């Protein structure tokens, strides 16, 4: 028969089967809906953020373009060039400082100051709770300039409008409370709440002295005819050597962009793992459906339907219902961001354009379709094993046989395509491959364990003659109808994901919140002028509660070239090259520094500049001894040769520099000092008061607060990832329900027989519950083991932190597995108990 004719007849038969409704395919549809919707939502939100960053890039940046300098203002040549390109310019100086409130109890707090000019903001508006516009809030009153501060700091210091405070030596009054700042997204991570003042009002404050750490940004409104690419090229050609960093509205917040991309990649892969769990449900659905259709298939075969016709008939049904699930999932996923709209815009401090985006929908459809086909083919291949002779023997179970080679090949090709497409869509081959490896290893572990459970329970039940309830439970686990493998797979994968995330985030949080405070300093003091160092040291040495302190000179610079070629061309997008880095100088290596390669300079060395580079980062960047780095410091290029590498330990939050130079190279440049101080907790407040009163220009970063802030960000990230992983759990739960539903008939029969021979309802129900507990508990234990192993590997090799088992998470994972399986099967177990024994025995159920 021709192919088209066969397809036609297959379609006719499939159409008649579909008339029966969707029963038998509910779980398949539900799994696809969840999986596709999750991936669509994640992709749509990411697309919305991307669009927001592009469309509102200028607003985010605070201008069409921006030129940034560290430690200095633009020189005349630079200013002239900027003015020639722009219709308007706004100068913004960004730095950290201590805000001092004098009162009954003097209060000090760290703040991130934005010192602006009258043109600020070039785009958008600073929204205040009090005044309509910024200029009103900042205007002088009785000679005292105004400042606006973020609510959180106002509350912490107990300030009211009109109250005065000091920044450095200058007094300000609180002119307003900040509600929102248009360019906050491009500011990056800040340690203190934001305050805004006029730059001119800082004169005499002592805060912008040479050597203090500040960055200056010139935001430009460009002419209509401006060519952004050409401008970027010009800026680079003319001023890269002087240390100017140029960006425009097309990439206003590269850090955010990168972060969002990485998070999305990770979430999509988590969503994919949910879809894979859904695949288990799909396979189980198809298997159950085909079992019910055994008689029909055998009949069709007996009246002359070929393998092809039968295969196509059921494949068509699966494809149709898959499309239904995918369609519903795609629609729900598309409207999801609209429903989450308000929460999203409130939670994410970056512009997000909520809309229907077809690319993430298409990607999710492809993922859903491939998953459905891959997981349907294995049970579909069993159609060939259904012999017409079963019509005579009333057999409904076929022996397990591996699918034929062509099916195995097709399934493999589809799975590999799925992985390849995931790598392509997410843009991260490595992460995708690791995820694929993790999921497939977890699958294999779980299948192996499930098979071992069946064999183990088979042997064990023989020994349990005196314990019938336990024996019944174990007997059922042994049998194929209980779906032991499916239960352990479906709930196991989801719990593995939860377990891994829980263990990893718990360990990182422990490293930051628990381990770090024990070794971290109490304060990081920055912007200490050289002339202030002797007195600063005296204060520290005189205080018996100060256990120790370190100090180092610091200047910031950008690595622009390596061996004469552009640094990024040499070393790629390494984090050391993104932005400026702190550089120090010293005659001898710090006590805890260990030279790993090369030789440190002589203490009085005055020859060409030398650098000692951090060993780990140096290796990552491909640096070796003798390489020449061009470092731009305050507009001047300094060429220095790497003469040694050393171990730098950043994990203690103490002083650590990627680059250290010989003193002669840097000591004459304007710079400040930093110091880490280790003090007893009870003495910290008083220590701060002493230093801040004596040196109002010095900024103190309280490490505990910084740790809390970082911790809070990490918690938010892990919460987002956990939400994503929740869909994996939900899908697994759906599959459990599906499996329980498919075993309902068997349970009814079992319950009827047991009741007929005299077993009590309680003992039968106990047996049902026991097998659910056993399977769920085993799934939980295996998932926990997988999660712990994965988390250990991540902590040890990726994060470089210590690992210990987070026992609460471990307990919750196991209990979760047990409860999930019990709840999923409870309803069907109770129904099985309620069915009348006689109706079952008369085959009327």
């Amino acid at each position, binding site marked *: *028969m021709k192919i088209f*004719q066969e397809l036609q*007849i297959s379609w*006719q*038969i499939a159409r*008649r*089967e579909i*008339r*029966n409704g969707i029963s038998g395919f509910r779980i398949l549809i539900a799994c696809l809906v969840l999986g596709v919707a999750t991936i669509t939502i994640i992709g749509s939100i990411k697309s919305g953020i991307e669009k927001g960053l592009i469309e509102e890039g200028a607003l985010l940046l605070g201008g069409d373009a921006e030129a940034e300098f560290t430690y200095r203002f633009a020189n005349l040549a630079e200013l002239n060039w900027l003015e020639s390109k722009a219709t308007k310019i706004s100068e913004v100086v960004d730095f950290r400082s201590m805000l001092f409130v004098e009162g009954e109890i003097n209060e000090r707090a760290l703040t991130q100051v934005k010192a602006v000019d009258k043109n600020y903001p070039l785009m958008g508006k600073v929204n205040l709770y009090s005044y309509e516009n910024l200029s009103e809030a900042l205007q002088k009153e009785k000679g005292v300039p105004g400042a606006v501060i973020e609510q959180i700091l106002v509350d912490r210091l107990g300030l009211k409008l009109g109250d005065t405070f000091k920044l450095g030596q200058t007094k300000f009054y609180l002119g307003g409370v900040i509600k929102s700042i248009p360019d906050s997204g491009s500011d990056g991570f800040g340690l203190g709440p934001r305050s805004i003042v006029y730059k001119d009002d800082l004169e005499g404050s002592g805060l912008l002295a040479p050597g203090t750490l500040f960055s200056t940004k010139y935001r430009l409104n460009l002419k209509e005819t401006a060519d952004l690419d050409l401008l970027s090229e010009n800026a680079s050609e003319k001023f890269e050597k002087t240390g100017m960093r140029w960006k425009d509205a097309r990439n206003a917040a590269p850090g955010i962009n990168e972060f969002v991309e990485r998070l999305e990649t990770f979430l999509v892969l988590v969503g994919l793992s949910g879809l894979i769990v859904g695949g288990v449900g799909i396979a189980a659905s198809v298997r159950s459906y085909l079992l019910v259709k055994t*008689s*029909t298939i*055998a*009949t*069709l*075969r*007996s*009246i*002359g*339907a*070929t*393998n*092809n*016709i039968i295969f196509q008939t059921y494949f068509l049904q699966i494809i149709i219902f898959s499309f239904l699930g995918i369609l519903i999932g795609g629609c729900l996923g598309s409207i999801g961001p609209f429903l989450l709209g308000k929460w999203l815009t409130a939670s994410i401090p970056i512009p997000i354009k909520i809309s229907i985006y077809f690319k993430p929908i298409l990607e999710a459809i492809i993922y859903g379709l491939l998953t459905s086909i891959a997981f349907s083919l294995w049970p579909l291949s069993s159609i*060939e094993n259904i*012999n*017409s*002779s079963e*019509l*005579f023997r*009333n057999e409904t179970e076929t022996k397990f046989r591996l699918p034929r080679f062509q099916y195995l090949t097709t399934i493999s090709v589809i799975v590999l395509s799925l992985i390849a497409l995931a790598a392509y869509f997410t843009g991260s081959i490595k992460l995708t491959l690791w995820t694929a490896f993790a999921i497939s290893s977890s699958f294999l572990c779980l299948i192996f364990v499930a098979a071992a459970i069946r064999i183990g329970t088979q042997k064990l039940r023989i020994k349990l003659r005196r314990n019938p309830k336990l024996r019944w439970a174990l007997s059922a686990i042994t049998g194929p109808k209980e779906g032991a493998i499916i239960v352990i797979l479906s709930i196991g994968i989801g719990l593995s994901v939860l377990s891994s995330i829980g263990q990893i985030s718990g360990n990182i949080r422990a490293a930051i919140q628990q381990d770090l405070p024990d070794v971290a300093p109490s304060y990081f003091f920055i912007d200490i002028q050289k002339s202030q160092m002797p007195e600063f040291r005296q204060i520290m040495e005189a205080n018996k509660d100060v256990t120790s302190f370190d100090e180092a000179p610091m200047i910031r610079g950008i690595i622009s070239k390596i061996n004469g070629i552009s640094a990024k061309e040499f070393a790629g997008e390494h984090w050391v090259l993104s932005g400026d880095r702190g550089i120090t100088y010293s005659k001898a290596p710090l006590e805890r520094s260990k030279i790993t390669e090369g030789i440190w300079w002589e203490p009085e060395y005055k020859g060409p500049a030398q650098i000692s580079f951090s060993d780990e980062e140096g290796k990552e960047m491909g640096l070796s001894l003798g390489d020449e780095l061009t470092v731009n410091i305050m507009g001047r290029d300094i060429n220095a040769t790497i003469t040694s590498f050393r171990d730098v330990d950043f994990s203690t939050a103490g002083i650590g520099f990627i680059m250290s130079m010989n003193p002669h190279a840097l000591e004459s440049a304007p710079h400040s000092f930093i110091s880490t101080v280790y003090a007893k907790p009870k003495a910290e407040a008083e220590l701060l008061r002493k230093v801040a009163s004596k040196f109002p220009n010095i900024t103190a970063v309280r490490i505990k607060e910084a740790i809390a802030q970082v911790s809070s960000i990490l918690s938010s990230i892990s919460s987002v990832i956990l939400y994503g992983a929740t869909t994996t759990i939900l899908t697994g739960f759906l599959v459990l329900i599906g499996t329980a539903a498919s075993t309902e008939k068997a349970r009814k029969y079992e319950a009827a027989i047991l009741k007929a021979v005299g077993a009590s309802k309680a003992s039968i129900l106990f047996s049902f519950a026991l097998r659910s507990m056993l399977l769920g508990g085993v799934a939980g234990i295996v998932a926990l083991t997988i999660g712990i192993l994965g988390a250990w590997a991540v902590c040890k090799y990726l994060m470089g932190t210590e690992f210990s088992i987070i026992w609460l998470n471990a307990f919750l994972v196991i209990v979760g597995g047990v409860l999930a399986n019990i709840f999923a099967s409870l309803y069907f177990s109770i129904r099985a108990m309620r069915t009348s024994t006689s109706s079952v025995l008369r085959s009327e159920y």
Partner: protein
Amino acid sequence: MQRPSILLENVSLSLDGNAGIVDILKGISIDIQEGESIGIVGPSGSGKSSLLMLMGGLERITSGKINLLGQNLHEMNENKLASFRRTNVGIIFQSFHLIPTMTALENVAIPLELNGNKDAFDLAEKALTKVGLKNRLSHFPSQLSGGEQQRTALARAVIASPKILLADEPTGNLDYENGKIVADYLFELHSENNATLVLVTHDLELANRCERKIKISDGEIFTQ
């Protein structure tokens, strides 16, 4: 001499069960002429149904030869067997085995549809009318009585005018009245189409309506 319609030469069937290999049929040799009606009788577990399955190509012989209408079934693969059955063999089962999601009309039309026959539904309607089910065309099997289901199955078995009709306990699940009606239709259609009829039954009255009886016991032919 006429070529036999069905020819079994020293056919054996052994199946691998949970308790080991079981010899179902041992060295069976039968020849059945075209248009003959044969009743196969014997005690339960004697191998009657298995013999029928072999004749329908629904089971593979372990050894020997089996030839239907000049074609060696033991040399055909699954698809070839299905194609062969489509046009040459009609089977009636004890449990009817109608497809539950198709109406009576659709069930009967299926063999013709598989053959690509464009008049399948018209012919199916005629076949159902012939067995007295004109008013049941759009009913699903669950809406038909046992007798009606078996008549539908009968119509399906004969619609492609097969040369061989195999019936496995066709009245086994029916009461006496319905059983008689079905049996009457069966023999009527067998004579109309001059099809070779092989009938497995416990019912001696039904077996006696056949031209010849073969008695099987313990996998071997007892009498012919």
